[in-house]
């Protein structure tokens, strides 16, 4: 089992969700996050004074997947969240030790 976390542009959330559902992903967790990458945010002016916007709003999806779906999921996210401009986000994949469905107590891939 793997956990795939994808940080994407907020307005592309719907597209990413649809792409993941298409390859058979049945559930996901989404959160509004803020962050920055290599561009380090950007500078704006308000009433003549500069201020730096460090943290740009993004959306983070988390999906827990059986190993065979991981590569497909990565490709689905990249295809649906890519605009080719700075700030498209990142995908992180990490091993997942255990999963439990709270309602039934099922464990492992059965719980996904």
């Amino acid at each position: 089992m793997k956990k795939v976390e994808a940080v994407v542009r907020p307005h592309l959330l719907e597209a990413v969700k649809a792409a993941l559902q298409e390859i058979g992903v049945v559930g996901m967790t989404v959160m509004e996050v803020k962050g920055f990458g290599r561009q380090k945010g950007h500078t704006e002016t308000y009433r003549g004074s500069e201020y730096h916007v460090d943290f740009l709003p993004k959306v983070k999806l988390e999906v827990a997947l059986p190993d065979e779906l991981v590569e497909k999921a990565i490709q689905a996210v990249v295809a649906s969240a890519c605009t080719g401009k700075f700030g498209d986000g990142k995908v992180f994949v990490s091993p997942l030790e255990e999963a439990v469905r709270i309602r039934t107590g099922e464990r492992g891939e059965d719980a996904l």
Partner: protein
Amino acid sequence: MRGGATVSSNRIRRLLLGLALGACAAAGVTALRSLDGVARAQVAPAAPSAAPTPAPRGPDPTGAATGTAADVPVKDAAHPTLVEVMDTVGHNRIAINIVWTLFTGFLVMFMQAGFAMVETGFTRAKNAAHTMSMNFMVYPIGMLGYWICGFALQMGGVGGVASLGGTAPLSHEFAITLFGKTFGLFGTTGFFMGSDVYDVGVFTLFLFQMVFMDTTVTIPTGAMAERWKWASFLIYGFFMSMVVYPLFANWVWGAGWLSQLGANFGLGHGHVDFAGSSVVHMVGGVAALAGAMVLGPRLGKYTKDGKPVAIPGHHIPMAIVGTFILAFGWFGFNPGSTLSGTDLRIGVVATNTMLASAGGALTAMIYMLWKFGKPDPSMMANGMLAGLVAITAPCAFVTAPAAVLIGAISGVLVCASVFFVEGRLKVDDPVGAISVHGVNGAWGVLALGLFADGKYGDGWNGVPGTVTGLLYGDPRQFLAQCIGTLTCFVFVFAAFYGFFKLVDVVVGNRVSAETEIAGLDLPEMGALAYPEFGLSASSTGWSGLGAAGSGAPAPLPVNAAQPARST
């Protein structure tokens, strides 16, 4: 009508035709009846003997037949006297003026909502309940202070306000004599609106003047927002409404010495301020300057080397709506200042007011666009308000092109002033109140001295002839305006700088650094404006504080240890 689909189109057509014919017939009958009514009313006086009860009139959908000779109260309908008719005309004239003055006063009262929204929109979410509460409480505090003694000091010696039926009771002005001339200082009738001034005209005047005064009281709450201690604010509210505003307003509007400069020293018509660029706005703006100076900047507003840091307001849409409410209220502020709905100059006043607001908003937007590449919604709003403030004094005395020009200049002036106050004076004014009301209030009264076209204001402040500015040939009027402006600044600044310094010693003006960083809503008011929303880093001060350093979030204790007061 659900069954309509089953009815043939022919039947529908016939039905509609019938309905239309019926309506026409009804209207025709009504019209005939109305004509009949007019005829009866017209012949009534000539009829030989008494016809005491007028015949009941039918409905009058056009209004053409409503209000006839039959509505004039006379003892003998057959023989109305000229005096009876004149009495009715006079009564109606004052009635129009009183209704007009009350109605425009109601519009000005609604400006309190505009101020509340502009100031709260331009400040942070963590202080929203506090900023709103200040804007709310200025209304009752200011009103009661004004009722106790403010109105009496301001208008107690104004003498007769002819357009409101004379206001005879307001007849005592305390004055001193210098160089053989009288200098009116304050009025002495009308305390607590007691039985000595129990008069419809005086009560109307009280309502109208009260809402103006309240506008002044609410101006400094914006400049001093996000750090002002509630107790200090309460004392301030009474001091402004009971002492400082009434005195300056007396000197300009209550037959005081600035209004007498014309009659006493031949300086035009004395200091002329039609609706309060100086009396209302500059007084508020200068008090805001003194208050913000004593209070010091918000934590994180300046970097260690003194560079101003932007602290964006939390709700720009709220501020924009507030600006529109203010612009709407200004249609009461300026046209209402005739105190007369029968002075048809109100058409010019209202139009000049809106033209100047457009000029101010447009030039402020263009200036910001040119300077920073983006139009900046907060400065667009400030620009519109600057145009309104600037046209408030000259609105009745200038041409339309002059109104646009006055507004256009104010739009640039307000931007330049915001940068100057923040960058050079190092005075932190979150909403731009000092620049909008103080600087453009001064510009407004000076603009009157430049652009008054000599078409209006015959007999103003007891000086024969119309009000004429420098560019139209009367440099003495401009001099009177300069004296009024200078007096406003010196008197109000001295009064409030001293006042806030004193309050600082006695109760303190500023909340603790911990309270300021947490937001004033809970510590000062006991209620969060937005309890169900998670406050972001910027709204709780972390982002603003962080930006004060190199761009990386600075640790809290370092910033919290910054001096709370700059003076």
